[in-house]
């Protein structure tokens, strides 16, 4: 297949993926709207200021921001043909992402342990739905990354693998941006910063 056809395919795939991200923005848009409307619906249960612990969330944010950096370095390294560096930074991305997810799970388990599950009030329902949806995306991203690395181990680098890595990086940066919104609207507004 000619280089021209490959290049066209690459740009078509990227364009389609951008549109998918746009549609995902709309999903998060609906969830954010729901959260903001139900934020006051605490039904006598805890408010946002009561349940948010700023320090772990700050760690989460730093981990995710750092992982956005490492994945960007990995893509640049892949383009430059420095495959060892790429691999290193991809594993770093994975670890940072896993740290983020672990902290989020700890937060959820803590809340449920204290008796503040999603059942308690509309506010908690919308909180778990919004933050959980982002967490689900992160989980899918981590799975994608591991699968990519496994195939890379088997196949090495080629045009197709390069394209898929590019799409993954796009996805990961997107989740980072969504998190910035989450961090601001859910957590920072929540503790009244």
């Amino acid at each position, binding site marked *: *297949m000619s280089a021209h056809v490959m290049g066209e395919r690459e740009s078509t795939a990227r364009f389609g993926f951008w549109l998918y991200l746009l*549609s995902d923005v709309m999903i998060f848009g609906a*969830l954010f709207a729901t959260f903001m409307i*139900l934020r006051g619906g605490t039904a006598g249960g805890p408010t946002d200021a009561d349940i948010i612990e700023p320090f772990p969330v700050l760690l989460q944010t730093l981990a995710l921001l750092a992982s956005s950096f490492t994945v960007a370095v990995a893509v640049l390294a892949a383009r430059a043909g420095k495959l060892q560096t790429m691999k290193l930074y991809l594993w770093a991305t994975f670890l940072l992402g896993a740290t983020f997810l672990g902290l989020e799970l700890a937060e959820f388990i803590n809340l449920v342990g204290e008796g503040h599950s999603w059942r308690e009030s509309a506010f908690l329902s*919308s909180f778990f739905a919004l933050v959980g949806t982002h967490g689900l995306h992160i989980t899918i991203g981590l799975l994608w990354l591991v699968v990519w690395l496994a195939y890379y181990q088997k196949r090495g680098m080629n045009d197709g693998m390069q394209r898929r890595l590019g799409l993954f990086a796009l996805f990961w940066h997107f989740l980072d941006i969504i998190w910035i919104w989450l961090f601001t609207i859910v957590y920072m507004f929540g503790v009244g910063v």
Partner: protein
Amino acid sequence: MEWLIGRLSLEYLPTDPATIGAAIGMPLGALVVAGLLTYYKKWTWLWKNWLTSLDAKKIGVMYIVVALLMLIRGVADAFMVRSHTAMVGVDGEGLFDADMFQQVFTAHGTIMIFFVAMGLMFGLINVVLPLMIGARDVAFPWLNSVSFWLFFAGMILNNIALVIGGFSSAGWLGYPPLTGLEYSPGPGVDYWIWSLQIAGVGSLLSGINFFVTIIKKRAPGMTLMKMPIFSWSVLVTTVLIIISFPLLTATLALLSLDRLMDMNIFTSYLGGNPMLYVNLIWAWGHPEVYILVLPAFGIYSEIVATFARKKLFGYATMVAALVAIMFLSFLVWLHHFFTMGAGANVNAFFGIMTMVIAIPTGVKIFNWLFTMYRGQIRFTSPFIWFLCFVFTFTIGGVTGVMMAVPALDYQVHNTLFLVAHFHNTIIGGVVFGFMAGITYWFPKIFGFRLNERLGKYAAYLWQLGFIVAFAPLYTLGLMGAVRRLDTYDDPTWTPLFIVSGIGVMIIGAGIALQVLQFVVSIWQRKQNLDTTGDPWDGRTLEWSVPSPAPEYNFAITPTVSRRDEWWYAKQETIRRPHKSEYVDIHLPQNNSMGLYIGLASLVAGFAIVWHMWWLVILCVVAIIAMVIMRTMDDNTEFTITGEELFELDSKRFTAGKAKA
């Protein structure tokens, strides 16, 4: 046992005769079809040529076949609803009890919108859009098959409800708190949620696919403003799909969280907010009606230009109108519930926006009329559908503007007046358009035309039946008949309900004629063969290739220099390309993974409805594994060499000569 089969139990089997009949009849019908396929040894043919094909035209035909079957089910539901209201006494004794009646109208609405109108729309887009823009294929052929099979899975899940568990009885948009656990604890609402959720993801993927196709795969020289209007309408529709369908996905997901995990998002206690659901679902729902009607508008634009033998009047204003509707359709959702009590200012804003959106629609109507003006009109059956549309849709538009006035809406809100209004636009606009489109493009896919006379009679019957069925509903609505009631305590309304029931029967006769039309046309196909590839003397690129269109669409990618390229090109001499101009092309190989993903989604949906969690997990893992396998596969295409293409394409020129 509960871990294995969840809450499934025999008590969910149907008990009333009508449902038992359907529950036995549908699987029996499927068995008969399977038996016939085995008897005639057609399984391999079906598998290779249709089920696993990634050819957009074939996927399109499968969409249309499914949608037409569902149309029959939807009309049967409508017939049940109207027979009941025609026969029911003031004591409430009629054909069905209240719950059954509610299930029937809920199934009617859900099926008609999601599995008939959406199916016909995606079917026609698949069939003609790539041909029309001079493309060999869609941007993501495999994704296209996934979309179809998700649509199919949603349809099957919806119909399984008839066999076991019963369907939702909460209306086609399922407002909470009625759809919450407290009032609908059974599996019906879950069937509704998950059949829409699965089909909805398919629609979203299709939306992305066709948007990219139009942007990236147009023939060289075809700038956006040289595209046929149908392509423009699809472009705008896909924008609406990409932006609005995620809202449906999110809303249904939140509702199912309420139902599955005891959340309180849309409940009426613990801080939940049912009106939030109504806002969210209509933020999808109103764009959705334009998603359905805009492609139909595109079809009318092609048909009126072809059969008036004139270029479309006001091309640029047509595009402007489409784009205006694209923006405005997101600013009118609140007119579905003026009675929520958002206050005079909010209602005034949405009322005015609703009136404003009628303007671009009016522009289109006038453009079509001016296209007909001084044209040499041929009254073919697609054109008859078009004329019925202009009449019916205009009435629907006018009653829509009436209801855009909040003060008036308070009177007719949720009455049969509203029911008549939206059927006016959806049948008159969407259904007539897709019927016209099917008739118009049928020869391009199958190589012969449909019987013209039966097609016209069917259109007339639909039109007549429509008026008889819905004029009484307008009257009843103005008199205050609330919709969705199984009984009314005013016996003087009964005659009007009886007239309406007769109207449904007339529409049913129209559909019977359409079935007859297909049968007769296939029977007599030799008399209506399309040997030229251009049976209607068309204007756009799909008519430049032979009928039936080859799987590669165009042997040589066409070049475009003007609107209605084919109309002008065929008035010049068409040169036969030299052998060296044929280059190798790559087409997608058949693939069955889309079908399996659809199947796994269907089982997953069924498992969620019945709370069989192990099965849900199994299916989700299977789907993820299949997606990984397919997306990591680099070898998905086959090649047709230039020489083979040259040979294949020679037929086109010999056939043309035979005609000359």
